[in-house]
């Protein structure tokens, strides 16, 4: 009953999980931002496999483009490194 597209979906979403975990652990905020946009690319692939092209179009543009840019602008107004645990 396991089909190929479900297997690919599981792989893609696991990669997304791994990258979101890495983004949470990263203290350099710009690196964390890059990791989180990689994670959203994987999730967008997952949405595509789930047959939701409308979501893919909005999600890629917002998560990789607009969100990243807004956070970069916010970081440029504070400090780049997270301090303390």
């Amino acid at each position, binding site marked *: *009953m*396991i089909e190929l597209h*479900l297997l690919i979906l*599981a792989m893609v*979403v*696991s990669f997304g*999980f*791994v990258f979101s*975990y890495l983004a949470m*652990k990263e203290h350099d905020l710009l690196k964390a931002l890059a990791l989180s946009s990689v994670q959203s690319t994987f999730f967008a692939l997952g949405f595509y496999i789930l047959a939701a*092209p*409308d979501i893919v*179009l*909005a999600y890629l*543009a*917002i998560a*990789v*483009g*607009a969100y990243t*840019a*807004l956070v970069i*602008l*916010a970081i*440029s*107004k504070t400090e780049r490194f997270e301090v303390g645990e």
Partner: protein
Amino acid sequence: MTVKRDTAVALSFLLAFLVLSYAVVEKDVMGLSKNPLRPLGEFYLGHAFASGELTSHSPEVVTAIVWNYRGFDTLFETFVFFLAIMGTLSVLRLREGQERMVRDMERVEPHRHMDLIVRVITRLVLLMIIGISASIALHGHLTPGGGFQGGSAMAVASLLLFAVFSKFTLERRGLTLRHTLGAYAVGIAIILLTVYAPLALGGRFLQINLLPGELGLFDLDVGEYLAVSFGFLSVFLILGVSEWIFRRILRGEVR
């Protein structure tokens, strides 16, 4: 120590994910395989492009749901976005004299120029992104896509403009906050006109399938496209003022 803890956390996440997907796919815990199509979904699929009274003249069921069957949701989302932009404006807006001060200070600020290759390639890529975003938005009622999707793609194009040519260059060429806010207002006006138009035809608020053909969906997509792309662009223009300039102006305000 921390490496061990990290691996444990990551492995437990993956294990939970595996167990969940096994339960849903193999053991059918949610009962998804028994009814692949719910009655509501059947209604949407059957009526979106039919000839009856409840049609929305669109073969693209997602857009039909977003702007017609669940139109109020999308309308209020648009207003949430409007409130966000108004919030940004009211917190960070500058008086006319202050705007002049910003312009003077930005003229003094050292300008980095990107390489010629980067600039030329960016121009080509920009044209492509704008074309794709227009095609996503303008036949959003026929193929996957719509106003919001096209608008956010357009926001990416304006970001590229910002990164490669500076904000100062854009403003010298005439792309100021005043213009982007004007275009944003045009988008909102198109949406409001289309939403109120059925009242004149004897229908109810937001009953856009009374308008001839797919005009209602098309108009709403165009309005949302303008509103989202220029809304994002004006937020970027406001946030793009350098921090030291902003600080100096705020200090002047305190005195």
